[in-house]
């Protein structure tokens, strides 16, 4: 009896100990907004990094934009480039940029920001093995700087006080000069990217691979804590030149599913629900007068389109490509897939990009009869066309099914094939057989310049990479190459050349032009812009992520 009692007690004690031990290991992963001057919101994915050499995504840009500075940046309410921590001059031929650092700029740890820190930061993001996972994703954006290739391939580590690329020098204290191989009118846009954020070399070298957990910049916020995958807290950096009195603390929860985020918003815990909002969340907004009054949107600088494999029949034929354009009811597609939250795409550039051709209204209105006659003209023989799309998203699946039906209605035989995510999605790059004819794809700007779209998506140099379908046209190519190489003070000519190039791309049906999505958000009425910034751009800027230092939290 004593033996069985002992057994029973030992099991009971073991169970209680397990519960107590695991409960003690489970510290609360998140902090709730407990102070009044706090903005709490969430993302449905991770903040991937705070290291400029590893940056690729919009989510990470939210905290990075607030922690770091760049030499130049975008105006808070327009897309005009304005001084960041430096003013600049450009040589007449557009190849030499001279940046003069503003006086008194400091990192949040008190270290002054120097020209050597800028040289270090730019060389760090352009080295061939910027981090343990290989070259920085955006290092290539600086490849027109003199000395880039030698530096990229050198394998040398960036160190404080280094030399690095021959085209990046400091001719005087507080001055950084960057020499390009060719003029690049969008170079200032490239220098406003998060990859060009200025880091403190001593902090990077101190923390090495763990740098991002201790990231330091000269921006209006500093990192208070980061429980990776769960929550990041930013607090005001009162020593920053961009600090605004009264700026709120920012708490960002990661990996919160959209339905839960909406519930927390409705309960008043979250100040925002950032978009693009999923369809199911938007449907709930439409059914609530309160939520509708708090909903805001802008057209994004992005494009959603179908690429054609022009390396083989039948889409090497312009009539075939035009037939697809006429066969798709894009207005209905926008209503069905985006709940009306998109603008009809009329050309390769989104409306917010300089060079957008305002004279092109609706080049391919829905016209199945015309589509059929163009199919005949193209000599379509009835072969099965393979339409590939990323299958990780129900909207993409529905899009593929809708378009398949519409193309089949005009006489095309279409087989839709879901592929794995973006990782294997560049068909000509990763699939040597090119066993596809139509591919759903999209692109969001790196910077608001036509080069980012027309060169990256439709030039010969981008064949087999971001020019997914290898479409090309000699006149288009010549116009875009010419416009890309003009210096920034020739913007009028650039815009003229880009507009002409756009007309060609549209007439030649380089893509099936679908839509330009909106960016949208729910914003609590107790979040107010500070001072003179009574503008939606503070929340939904076409390039910048929300600018929290210009917001205040009213009593609620």
């Amino acid at each position, binding site marked *: 009896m004593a033996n069985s009692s002992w057994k029973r007690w030992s099991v009971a004690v073991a169970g209680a100990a397990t519960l107590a031990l695991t409960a003690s290991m*489970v510290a609360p992963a998140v902090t709730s907004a407990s102070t009044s001057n706090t903005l709490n919101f969430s993302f449905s994915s991770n903040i*991937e990094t705070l290291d400029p050499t590893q940056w690729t995504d919009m989510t990470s840009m939210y905290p990075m934009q607030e922690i770091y500075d760049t030499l130049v940046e975008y105006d808070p309410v327009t897309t005009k480039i304005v001084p960041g921590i430096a003013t600049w001059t450009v040589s007449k031929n557009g190849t030499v940029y001279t940046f003069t650092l503003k006086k008194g700029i400091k990192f949040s740890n008190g270290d002054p920001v120097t020209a050597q820190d800028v040289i270090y930061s730019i060389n760090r993001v352009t080295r061939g093995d910027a981090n343990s996972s*290989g070259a920085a994703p955006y290092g290539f954006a600086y490849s027109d700087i003199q000395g880039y290739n030698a530096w990229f391939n050198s394998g040398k580590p960036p160190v404080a006080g280094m030399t690095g690329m021959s085209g990046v020098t400091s001719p005087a204290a507080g001055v950084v000069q960057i020499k390009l191989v060719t003029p690049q009118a969008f170079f200032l846009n490239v220098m406003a990217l998060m990859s060009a954020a200025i880091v403190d070399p001593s902090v990077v070298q101190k923390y090495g691979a763990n740098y991002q957990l201790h990231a330091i910049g000269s921006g209006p916020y500093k990192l208070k804590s980061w429980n990776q995958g769960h929550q990041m807290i930013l607090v005001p950096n009162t020593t920053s030149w961009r600090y605004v009195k009264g700026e709120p603390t920012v708490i960002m929860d990661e990996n919160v599913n959209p339905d839960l985020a909406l519930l927390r918003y409705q309960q008043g815990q979250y100040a925002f629900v950032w978009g693009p909002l999923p369809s199911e969340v938007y449907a709930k907004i439409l059914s609530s007068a309160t939520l509708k009054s708090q909903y805001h949107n802008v057209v994004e600088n992005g494009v959603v389109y179908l690429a054609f494999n022009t390396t083989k029949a039948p889409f090497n034929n312009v009539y075939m490509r035009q037939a697809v354009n006429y066969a798709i009811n894009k207005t209905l597609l926008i209503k069905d897939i985006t709940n009306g939250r998109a603008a009809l795409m009329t050309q390769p550039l989104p409306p917010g990009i300089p060079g957008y051709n305002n004279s092109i209204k609706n080049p391919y209105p829905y016209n199945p009869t015309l589509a059929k006659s163009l199919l005949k003209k193209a000599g379509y023989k009835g072969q099965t066309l393979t339409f590939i799309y990323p299958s990780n998203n129900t909207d993409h699946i529905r899009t593929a099914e809708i378009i398949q039906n519409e193309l089949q209605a005009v006489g095309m035989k279409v087989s839709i094939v879901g592929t*794995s995510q973006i*990782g294997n999605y560049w068909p000509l790059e990763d699939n040597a057989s090119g066993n596809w004819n139509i591919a759903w794809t999209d692109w969001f700007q790196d910077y608001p310049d036509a080069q980012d779209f027309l060169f990256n998506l439709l030039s010969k140099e981008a064949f087999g990479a971001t020019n997914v379908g290898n479409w090309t046209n000699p006149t288009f190519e010549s116009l875009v190459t010419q416009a890309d190489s003009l210096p920034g003070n020739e913007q009028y000519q650039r815009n003229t050349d880009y507009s002409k190039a756009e007309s060609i791309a549209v007439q030649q049906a380089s893509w099936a032009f679908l839509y330009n999505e909106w960016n949208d958000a729910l914003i609590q009425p107790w979040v107010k812009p500070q001072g003179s910034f009574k503008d939606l751009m503070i929340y939904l800027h076409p390039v910048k992520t929300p600018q929290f230092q210009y917001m205040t939290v009213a009593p609620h």
Partner: protein
Amino acid sequence: MGSYLVRRAIWTIVTIWAILTVTYFIAYMVPSDPARLIAGQHASAATLASIRRALGLYHPLWYRYLVYANQFIHGNLGYDFIMRRTVSGMVLQAAPYTLYLAVVAVFFELAIGIPIGIVAAVKRYSFVDNLLRFVSIVGISMPTYWVGSMLLMLVGFKLGWLPLGGVSPLGVILPALSVGITGSAFYARILRSSTLETMRMDYVRTARAKGAGEALVLFKHTIRNSLIPVVTYLGLDLGALLGGLIVTEYIFNWSGLGFLLNTAIGQDDGALIMGVTLFSASGIVIMNFVVDVVYAFLDPRVSYS
């Protein structure tokens, strides 16, 4: 008993190795480009090539498998280049949350299921028994994610009595309760059957014949022995919960292994999917081993020959 433990331990190791092999090759059969996932849409071909070299993607698959297996033996689940953290670190950070949630969920399952099972057995074939069995069937049939969503909406949002998801001292109640409500039905049914069977045993009849009151017969002679199948199921249940709270953790934003796995699936993160799967599956296998040992420890009638 010694030889039994050794045999079970060897099979446990073999099973874990088989799980590692199957999950590794399945994970890498899914078409995916880790370099593109890390570098994003806009990266150049040279950048991608550099990343692929750094990741060792140019080595043959069998070589990469052996490297991974060797790392696993040393407790290393690899490095996740998308999350930029070690997989082991992320898994070990998440595991206690899942264990805690699973333990609290099992508490609710037992707290609800055991009384229902006992009452149903005592009131066997009566209206109460039929009603409780109907409730059990409904409980088994309800999807956990539906129960969870309803509790979140009603208790968390409409009434505001408990937090809207997230990890906090009160935040464990709703997710655990959603699992507890649906899982308790299994315990109720098992315990009802087991209790009815035990009640028919000779020693129970003997106890009654000796004049023992019904309460004494129930609590001293019947229930204790009726709990044996419950213990068996408990171990399996706990093991399954450790690997199967994906949807619950997603709904309630509970930072456990299921939450981590959901994140990994959403970003096509092969390394993390593998790490969580391997860890959870190994946990289930080890838990089964522990159950076998504890079971025999509790019931000396089990033979190890």
